[in-house]
């Protein structure tokens, strides 16, 4: 099995605040890996580094053979830097923009849903087919690309069907119930034809039944589209149920890694979640 995503020694520091501290993770092809940790542990920040929204202060992130981010502290950060390995990633910095990273094959959903507000569910998914276009502004405007346009529409509809929202295609995206909005975000991510899917709290706001269904659904799309899945999630049942491996982070640092059963019994994890009596 080859490694799809490799995060090496990544530190993300905002001014003096260290959000991620020397974090290394990897996700192998075909895996479902979960990233868990208490609120404010730095999980979404890690996703934002992987998807190019943030530039890590230090460290390297690779997608397959392609380095998508590589950085070391510069400028003001040189003095402020509080992480490790400050000398390991000197040399040319690499920072691919989020759109390039998506085009390489990493798609994501957002913790605080970010659908295109003024557009229908169908249009939301249709937009995500834009990146695989072959037309240019001229051919598209003059509708010379009719065949491609048709393919895009078919693909968008197919994705809506996949997540079970075909009936709501014409609804305004933001008028959908919360759970459906989350699924619409997944449909949108799938329409970009990713190899790696990052899900940021896909079950947030769902009831227990919906959460169960979500677990089966994630497995299903993983098999159907030959995906690798990396997800942040708080619902422990879901995490334990579908993950192959779990990373646990707290205060930006990795505190445990392993199969669900190992992680569940790890004292450090229990301490992080329940808090330790320090007196």
């Amino acid at each position, binding site marked *: 099995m080859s490694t799809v995503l490799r995060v090496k020694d990544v530190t993300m520091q905002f001014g003096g605040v260290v959000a991620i501290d020397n974090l290394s993770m990897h996700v192998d092809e075909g895996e479902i890996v979960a990233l868990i940790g208490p609120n404010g542990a730095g999980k979404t920040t890690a996703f934002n580094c992987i998807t190019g929204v943030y530039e890590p202060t230090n460290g390297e992130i690779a997608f397959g053979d392609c380095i998508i981010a590589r950085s070391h502290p510069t400028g003001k950060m040189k003095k402020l830097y509080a992480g490790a390995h400050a000398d390991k990633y000197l040399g040319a910095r690499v920072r691919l923009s989020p759109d390039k990273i998506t085009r390489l094959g990493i798609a994501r959903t957002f913790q605080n849903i970010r659908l295109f507000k003024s557009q229908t569910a169908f249009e939301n998914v*249709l937009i995500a087919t834009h990146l695989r276009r072959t037309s240019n502004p001229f051919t598209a405007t003059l509708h010379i690309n009719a065949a491609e346009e048709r393919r*895009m529409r078919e693909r968008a509809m197919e994705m809506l069907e996949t997540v079970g929202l075909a009936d709501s295609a014409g609804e305004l995206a933001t008028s959908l119930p919360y759970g459906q909005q989350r699924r619409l975000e997944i449909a949108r991510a799938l329409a970009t034809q990713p190899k790696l899917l990052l899900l940021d709290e896909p079950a947030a706001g769902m009831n227990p039944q919906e959460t169960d269904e979500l677990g089966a659904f994630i497995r299903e799309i993983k098999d159907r589209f030959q995906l690798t899945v990396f997800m942040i999630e708080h619902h422990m049942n879901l995490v334990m149920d579908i993950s192959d491996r779990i990373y646990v982070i707290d205060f930006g640092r990795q505190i445990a890694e392993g199969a669900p059963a190992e992680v569940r019994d790890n004292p450090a994890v229990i301490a992080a979640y329940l808090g330790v009596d320090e007196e």
Partner: protein
Amino acid sequence: MKKSTKAAVGTLLVAALFAGVWLAERLAGANSMLVTVLEKGAIYALIAVSMNLLNGFTGLFSLGQAGFMLVGAYTYAIFTIPAARRMAVYQYYQGGIVQFELPCLLAIVLAGVVAAAFAALVGLPVLRLKSDYLAIATLGFAEIIRAVIQYDKLGPLTNGSNLLKTYPTFDTALFPFAVAGVCIAVILMLIHSTYGRACKAIRDDEIAAEAMGINLFRHKLLSFVISSFFAGVGGALLAMYQGTVQANAFKSSMTYEILLIVVIGGMGSVTGSVLASFLFIACSEWWLRFLDVETFIGTVQVPLLRSGFRMVVFSVVIMAVVLFYRRGIMGDREFSLDAIARAFSGKKRKGARAK
């Protein structure tokens, strides 16, 4: 509605529109207020739609429209003044350096191209920044270009601060209607293409759009350059309408007026912009004229009515729209044959918008 019937009805409507304009011109006379409003309204419609493409559909707050119109107007005028008349127009610059003339339509296209080239020049550095800066940078660009065009040393090309005149104009309102019509149709087709959808995505949520693989900078630049192209074409038409061009007329207040037209029509509605343009021009040139005239009823002077009152009333109305009727006439909806057909048949499209 079926595609073929739609096409037929559409063609019929366009034909009817042109016939109407032609008839109006015959009946009301070429110098009537009605024809003025039709001509200027068509030109402003194009410019407003071009601005809406940026502000309404891509979510970029740009205030450079007057600058790009100026570039278009000058490009058109410079390249179409008949060679024989150049000595008279460029009297302080020995007839200027351009000693040939282009056909009218070609010059209009060139006006758009030059404006688009300037837009690329401004957009390349600025579009990577937050959109507030775009507003002020484009406003600044419009001021720079206005100063540069009047620069003495450029006189042989631009005639300095003197008027450009005696270039070919149009003699029927059908001409601006046809040019503006074609341009607006192209903009509409762009908006309905996959690129237009990408622009709307950027407007709604830049971060999500980027996560969908949309290159923000490239699409913003595309929208900016295309918008400026059509502003340039609009500028050329305005030059034809006015008969003379002088850089000082293209002040930032002109941009503000166009922006307000877009707001009144509804940000994100092409038909709204078109409608609002005609309304705006009709009100300011024609229907509200009486407010500027001192009027007496018997011997009593009607209070407030005197020169300038029209614009005060006008701007109060605009403020009311901006504050209380923010979605404008059309919101982000469009006036389309489908919509009318639905209204008539009483059927609601499945999942029609709630609002």
